[in-house]
């Protein structure tokens, strides 16, 4: 290829038009003493190269940061995990005060974390879906905008405020309902007696409701975006067939946006799993192990770490908390990745 082009270059190099045509192949050729065109090109290329390296660098930086956090957690957790006297995954103990006798397991932390997040998800998903449908399909435009803004504002409330509100305002209000559920549906294991009285309010039930409010704007925001992207052609197609508003939603908006809704819910789940301050305030800390009921109290991964931070005085004890943090990191990372993946496949039914 190079052999065949070089003679051609040389023959055209004498002509003025040849200088233009030959530019891409000319650059390495030493026999072409045209100073302007290579410098012109290198200016363009420089900007290109800078932009490209900035963009690539930013990308690498993010990945490196996440990897560094993961590696940090892993390195600090391993010695403590090796010194652990009980099973890390299945033990219900959490004794980290004595570095020579570490006994810590995440089973109860996992229960409280997952249970409160699932309660939140079960409550928030239908409401978020309803709000998103209302905002995109039913609300008059004058109303939709301020209303959407209001929902977004929920995300701006600091989580410590949610914690205070949950513990001081919500808990007393809902405790009669919690007692009623416990008395009447107590035969279902998740409504059975927990490790604190159902009426205390400082339990997973209250925490889940507060978390539901906290993740509502995330789920609503994503779902609203996806629902609003439903192609007008599909909506009009359904309308022209004589579909009612609800039938339009069912035949076009929902199939189109379903994955986005699920993805948004997963994002909300990731947020709920990692929530710290609000749950630290709401959940009362107890040494009685939980009873796998939503009226349990205790600590989540995140609130356990926050509660223990005062005792971070030797590396082995700290390592136990870091190990718990590592689990939370992996779980939320996986949930978020899943969320993005589901969300990105939304509306793919087209193909």
């Amino acid at each position: 290829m190079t052999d065949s082009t070089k003679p051609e270059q040389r023959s055209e190099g004498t002509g003025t038009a040849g200088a233009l045509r030959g530019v891409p192949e000319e650059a390495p050729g030493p026999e072409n003493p045209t100073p302007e065109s290579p410098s012109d090109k290198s200016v363009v290329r420089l900007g290109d190269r800078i932009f490209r390296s900035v963009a690539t660098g930013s990308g690498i930086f993010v990945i490196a940061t996440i990897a560094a956090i993961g590696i940090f957690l892993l390195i600090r957790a391993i010695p403590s995990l090796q010194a652990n006297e009980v099973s890390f995954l299945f033990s219900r103990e959490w004794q980290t005060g004595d570095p020579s006798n570490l006994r810590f397991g995440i089973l109860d932390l996992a229960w409280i974390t997952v249970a409160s997040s699932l309660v939140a998800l079960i409550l928030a998903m239908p409401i978020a879906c309803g709000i998103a449908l209302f905002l995109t399909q039913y609300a008059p435009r004058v109303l939709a905008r301020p209303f959407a803004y209001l929902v977004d504002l929920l995300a701006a409330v600091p989580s410590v405020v949610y914690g205070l509100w949950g513990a001081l305002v919500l808990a007393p209000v809902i405790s009669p309902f919690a007692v009623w559920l416990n008395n009447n549906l107590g035969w279902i294991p998740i409504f059975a007696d927990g490790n604190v009285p159902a009426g205390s309010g400082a339990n997973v039930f209250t925490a889940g409701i507060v978390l539901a409010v906290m993740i509502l704007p995330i789920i609503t925001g994503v779902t609203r975006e996806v629902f609003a992207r439903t192609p007008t052609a599909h909506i009009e197609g359904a309308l022209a067939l004589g579909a009612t508003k609800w039938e339009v939603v069912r035949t076009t908006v929902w199939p189109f946006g379903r994955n986005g809704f699920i993805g948004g819910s997963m994002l909300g789940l990731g947020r709920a799993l990692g929530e710290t301050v609000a749950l630290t305030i709401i959940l009362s800390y107890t040494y009685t192990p939980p009873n796998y009921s939503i009226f349990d109290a205790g600590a989540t991964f995140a609130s356990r770490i926050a509660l223990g931070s005062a005792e971070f005085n030797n590396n082995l004890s700290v390592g136990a908390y870091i190990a718990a943090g590592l689990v939370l990191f992996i779980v939320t990372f996986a949930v978020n990745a899943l969320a993005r993946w589901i969300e990105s496949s939304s509306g793919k039914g087209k193909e």
Partner: protein
Amino acid sequence: MAKRLDIKDLNLHYGKFHAVEDVTLQVQARSVTSFIGPSGCGKSTVLRALNRMHEVIAGARVDGKVLLDGEDIYAPSVDPVQVRRTIGMVFQRANPFPTMSIRDNVVAGLKLTGEKNKKKLDEITERSLRSANLWEEVKDRLHKPGGSLSGGQQQRLCIARATAVQPDVLLMDEPCSALDPISTLAIEDLIAELKKDYTIVIVTHNMQQAARVSDQTAFFNLRAVGEPGQLVEIEETGKLFSNPNQKATEDYISGRFG
């Protein structure tokens, strides 16, 4: 089945914009009427007013009467959903429901009316696809997504979907403008066949197409940009293209403007 349309003093607005002014015309049952005219003259807007799709757009308003065999579809007691079930529509871009199979697309309208009998739905699927000249091409893959078909096939699928509910009138909004000549020919042949059973109104930018498929042609125009569109004349197609009554029509069809 096939009913006639009488449009009387139809005025259409988008918010404050007066889009179409004082349109009065008749469409006979079992005939093809084409609407031609330059872009923005309101022909699609008029078409959308005929099955109450115009009012779906925020701020849109309709004045005047559209009579379907003498009954005003804009009467206060009339449910627009019911109107759209009796006056079907095919759009410029084929819009099969992407998440539904070919079969489900065809019977989507029937399912909305509550029809659940599988045997009947299968029969209607076959009949509608046959009448849309699509059956032979898709009969082995009825459960594949509607989006897996070619553009022309998708448009015929949409026609099958519109005819599956056996409407009184079939409205077509530039049904061939996104299609190649061969698919266009297939649709035009189809229109000629559907004319036996349906009243058809078609909007087209292609004057040859109007001349080929329609019995009567309505020419719409607007005096200037920002002014409302008007019906200039409606005539038997052969006469309109050979000897129009209005100078504006002649200028348009002879390519002097537009």
